[in-house]
C-alpha cells in the first residue's frame, strides 16, 4: 500500500482486552510484512503499554484506553497508547528498571521492555489527567527480504 495508513482503537480497561489490543496491532502491522520476531516485539510493547493503563492508570475503575497506530515512511510503525487516568508523578523514576508501584504482581520492567524493543519511547504524563506513550519501530523492508 502506497498511501499512508493508520488506525485508532478505543476500548475499556478490562484486562481481557490486553490480548485484543495485541492481536489488533498484529493485524494492522501485517501490511508491513513483519518477521515473526518483529511481530513479537511489537505485541509485547503494546501489551506492556495497555497493561499499564489497566493496572496503574485506572486502578479502581474502568476507563477508556486509546491505541493509535500509523505507518510512517521507510516502513516505520508508530504506536500511541493513551489513557485519561491518574498520570505519573515522576516519569524519570517510572522509567527505571524494576521500579514499580504495583507490588509483587508487577516486575517494574514494562518501560524497560518498551524501550529496548521499540525506538523513540516518549512518555507524556500529567497527574490527574492521564498518560500518553508513543513509540516507533522500523521494520525490515519487504524488498530486502531474502
Amino acid at each position: 500500500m502506497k498511501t499512508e495508513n493508520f488506525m485508532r482503537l478505543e476500548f475499556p480497561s478490562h484486562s481481557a482486552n490486553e490480548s485484543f489490543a495485541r492481536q489488533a496491532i498484529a493485524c494492522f502491522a501485517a501490511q508491513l510484512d513483519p518477521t515473526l520476531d518483529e511481530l513479537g516485539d511489537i505485541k509485547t510493547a503494546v501489551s506492556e503499554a495497555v497493561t499499564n493503563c489497566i493496572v496503574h492508570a485506572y486502578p479502581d475503575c474502568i476507563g477508556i484506553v486509546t491505541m493509535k497506530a500509523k505507518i510512517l515512511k521507510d516502513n516505520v510503525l508508530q504506536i500511541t497508547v493513551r489513557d485519561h487516568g491518574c498520570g505519573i508523578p515522576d516519569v524519570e523514576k517510572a522509567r527505571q528498571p524494576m521500579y514499580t508501584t504495583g507490588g509483587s504482581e508487577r516486575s517494574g520492567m514494562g518501560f524497560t521492555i518498551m524501550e529496548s524493543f521499540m525506538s523513540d519511547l516518549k512518555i507524556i504524563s500529567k497527574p490527574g489527567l492521564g498518560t500518553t506513550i508513543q513509540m516507533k519501530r522500523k521494520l525490515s523492508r519487504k524488498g530486502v527480504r531474502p
Partner: protein
Amino acid sequence: MLTSFLQDKQLTIALDGEIDHHSAQRIMQQIGGKIDQFLPASCILDFERVSFMDSSGIAVVLNARRRMNELGGSVILLNVQPQPMKILCSAGIEQIAKIS
C-alpha cells in the same frame, strides 16, 4: 488447571497459552498452591506451550522463586520459546532461575 507432576521431590508444572496481566494472577496462584501442596526441593516451570509472555510473566517467575527460596529450593525454566526468552533475558532472569 495447569498440569503438573512430582518425581524425586522435583515438581514440574507445564504452563500454557499467553501470559499477560490478565492471566498471570491465576497462574501465580496455581503455582503457589502446588508448591504449598508438594513442598518440592525444586520447581520446574515448563514453558514449551507458552506462545507469548509480557513482563507479567517475569512476576510469575519471581513469585515462584520467592516461594521456593522459603523452602530452600530452586526454580528451573524449561523449553522456553524465543519470544518469552527475550522477555526473561531482558529482565536478567538467568541470574535468579536456571534456564535449561
